[in-house]
């Protein structure tokens, strides 16, 4: 454990630098001053894998939330799922699984609401060419005060669900290896039932904004930062969308299945990660296709594309409408992420409704036991996409290996492509214009990458864009606070 102290020091320091960091984009030009390559630099926090070495396995679901502030509940649950395996539990008691699901849907509901109302709605309501001085959350609050309030209330509802299932709004302890540490009391349930109809109504409203906007501006959006890609997601055994548990599926841009019905425990047989010298963040790809062709998108768009159906009625009707736009083929429009995300928002609240009426949540059988296995893999669909956790544990109950592939890493190549596409379309001359800067920001934001997480609170995404000519000389640099 000689690395312990340095590992510990990291936690104290890293998150601070991360919060203060900007997203950074480098644009490389060729001899004809056309875009050759766009590079999005994200400082990914990888210290966790080292720090967790030697710690008792049951700490991981709590520990990981602290080291990775991206979406704590997703990490909490993915680690807990891996630890279920480690303690030899393949099936949780119904109360435990449903409590975890409630936690997860609550997180989706709050995360998607925050992203949509805080970061995206200004682009959609004012148009993304609008003056940044009004195209922000304050502008929305002034012009559409009801909407701003809805965003806050929806977020709060989701956070309260997290508190009721995990014990705290952020960094709770709810999921433990083999189960959960509490059930949902009748009082807690009734508290959520009270506002449920309102939440459903507001989710419909948000979805309508995203849908109408996409439909009205389709011509322009269709090409904006868009490209054909593969899509990867967990889907339930019967093909339904399932954000908590499922089998691994990847489809190509036409909808053909490249990976299907795969037990995610074997993810290493199907997914590999490429290292590129200029990036801290790796580039995952589907092994059978290789790094050139095997990269894929994850998150709301990929999930809607990859599943066969959604098992809640309103979201399913919306999914059909969404798929009709591209004649049932996968939708490859980057800006359609927002629409897909709001379909998931509605799906989440429908699921929450289903769960709140399920008496299993008041059950008292909370934890299952099994025989220790020494290794565990947990995958989950986080709000931003598929999240992989993998651990090895020695006979003394200590973690000896941890491997994480986080959602934003899965979207690394697509985000770079989106930036490249936008830069190709909007760069004129050797200057980074205000317009280009804005468009890059809008394209990145569609993926809701974790770098925006740190800046959610302020409702803005600080960005540095640098332009290099063919001789590798910096010709322009713009900073957007």
């Amino acid at each position, binding site marked *: *454990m000689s690395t312990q*102290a340095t590992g510990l020091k990291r936690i104290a320091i890293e998150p601070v630098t991360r919060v203060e960091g900007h997203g950074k984009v480098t644009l490389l030009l060729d001899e004809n001053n056309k875009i050759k390559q766009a590079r999005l630099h994200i400082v990914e926090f990888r210290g966790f894998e080292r720090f967790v070495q030697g710690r*008792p396995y049951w700490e991981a679901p*709590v*520990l990981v939330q602290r080291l990775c502030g991206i979406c704590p509940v997703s990490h909490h649950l993915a680690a807990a799922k891996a630890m279920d395996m480690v303690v030899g539990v393949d099936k949780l008691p119904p109360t435990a699984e449903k409590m975890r699901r409630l936690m997860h849907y609550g997180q989706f509901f709050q995360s998607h609401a925050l992203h949509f109302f805080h970061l995206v709605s200004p682009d959609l309501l004012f148009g993304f060419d609008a003056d940044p001085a009004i195209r922000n959350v304050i502008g929305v609050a002034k012009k559409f005060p009801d909407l701003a309030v809805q965003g806050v209330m929806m977020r709060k509802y989701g956070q309260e669900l997290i508190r009721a299932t995990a*014990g*705290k709004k952020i960094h709770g302890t709810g999921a433990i290896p083999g189960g959960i540490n509490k059930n949902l009391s009748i009082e807690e349930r009734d508290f959520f039932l009270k506002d449920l109809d309102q939440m459903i109504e507001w989710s419909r409203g948000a979805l309508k904004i995203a849908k109408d906007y996409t439909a009205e501006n389709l011509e322009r959006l269709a090409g904006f930062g868009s490209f054909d890609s593969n899509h990867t997601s967990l889907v339930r055994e019967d093909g339904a969308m399932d954000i908590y548990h499922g089998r691994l599926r990847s489809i190509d841009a036409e909808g053909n299945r490249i990976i299907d019905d795969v037990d995610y425990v074997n993810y290493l047989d199907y997914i590999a990660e490429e290292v590129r010298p200029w990036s801290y963040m790796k580039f995952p790809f589907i092994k059978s296709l290789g790094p050139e062709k095997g990269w894929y998108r994850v998150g709301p768009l990929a999930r809607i594309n990859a599943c066969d159906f959604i098992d809640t009625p309103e979201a399913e009707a919306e999914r059909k409408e969404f798929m009709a736009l591209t004649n049932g083929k996968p939708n490859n429009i980057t800006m359609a992420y927002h629409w897909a995300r709001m379909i998931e928002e509605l799906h989440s609240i429908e699921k929450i409704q289903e769960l709140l009426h399920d008496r299993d949540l008041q059950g008292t059988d909370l934890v299952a036991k099994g025989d220790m296995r020494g290794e565990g893999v947990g995958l989950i669909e986080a709000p931003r996409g598929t999240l992989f956790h993998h651990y090895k544990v020695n006979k003394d109950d200590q973690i000896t290996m941890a491997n994480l592939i986080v959602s934003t890493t899965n979207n690394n190549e697509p985000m770079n492509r989106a930036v490249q596409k936008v830069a190709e379309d909007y760069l004129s001359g050797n200057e980074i214009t205000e317009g280009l800067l804005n468009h890059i920001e809008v394209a990145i934001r569609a993926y809701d990458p974790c770098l925006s997480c740190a800046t959610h609170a302020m409702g803005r995404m600080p960005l540095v864009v640098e332009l290099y000519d063919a001789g590798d000389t910096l010709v322009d640099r713009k900073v957007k606070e």
Partner: protein
Amino acid sequence: MADNFTFIIDGTEIPARQGQTILKAADEAGIYIPRLCNKDGLEPYGACRVCTVLVNGRPQSACTQPAQPGIIVENDTEELTEMRKQLIEMLFVEGNHFCMFCEKSGNCELQALGYRLGIAAPRFPFMFPQRELDATHPEVFVDRNRCILCGRCVRASRDQDGKNVFQFTGRGIKKRISVNATSRLADTELKSADKAVAACPVGSILKKGVGYAVPIGERIYDHKPIGSDIESKAK
């Protein structure tokens, strides 16, 4: 000297018996004097100094100092609280205490004292010492990152379990809790039901596999500050 007598704590007259410590008499009277290395049933040790009170104006540790007829004891004063805060803060920075993911959170006496005394963030620099974890025992593990060297495990093992599983090695900043004869907990006679395991006030000696089984909201200090059990005895 009379067997039964009284003395004064913070202006209140309380009864005491011959041979009782100030701390014990205060406990029985429902007055809480903060403490860490002291634990009911274990011989007083006087190591942490958190229980320091002024006896007729002179600092003494209440857990070791016998009560005397007529003494004037000051306990709940601004200066003493300030001194206790500093002691607790030093314990925090001398170890690696990360309450946010420690499974003892909510049940930890050090954390609870920090809350009770109103410590926000320690004013001393963290030292991030290198400390070892011993996970060799099938039922119990020792995480020295969180040890505050209170010696409760040493006394409990020796006096209550009759085993001598734990002792201190090293001095000063290098002082560590260690296990007898060998370097591995697995090679001792320790059992998870031993008093020594339950004696640890922090998350240093823990039963394996328990983790976060108790939900937030149901832990010992989630709703009531440390010492309220004693104070509820006040007449």
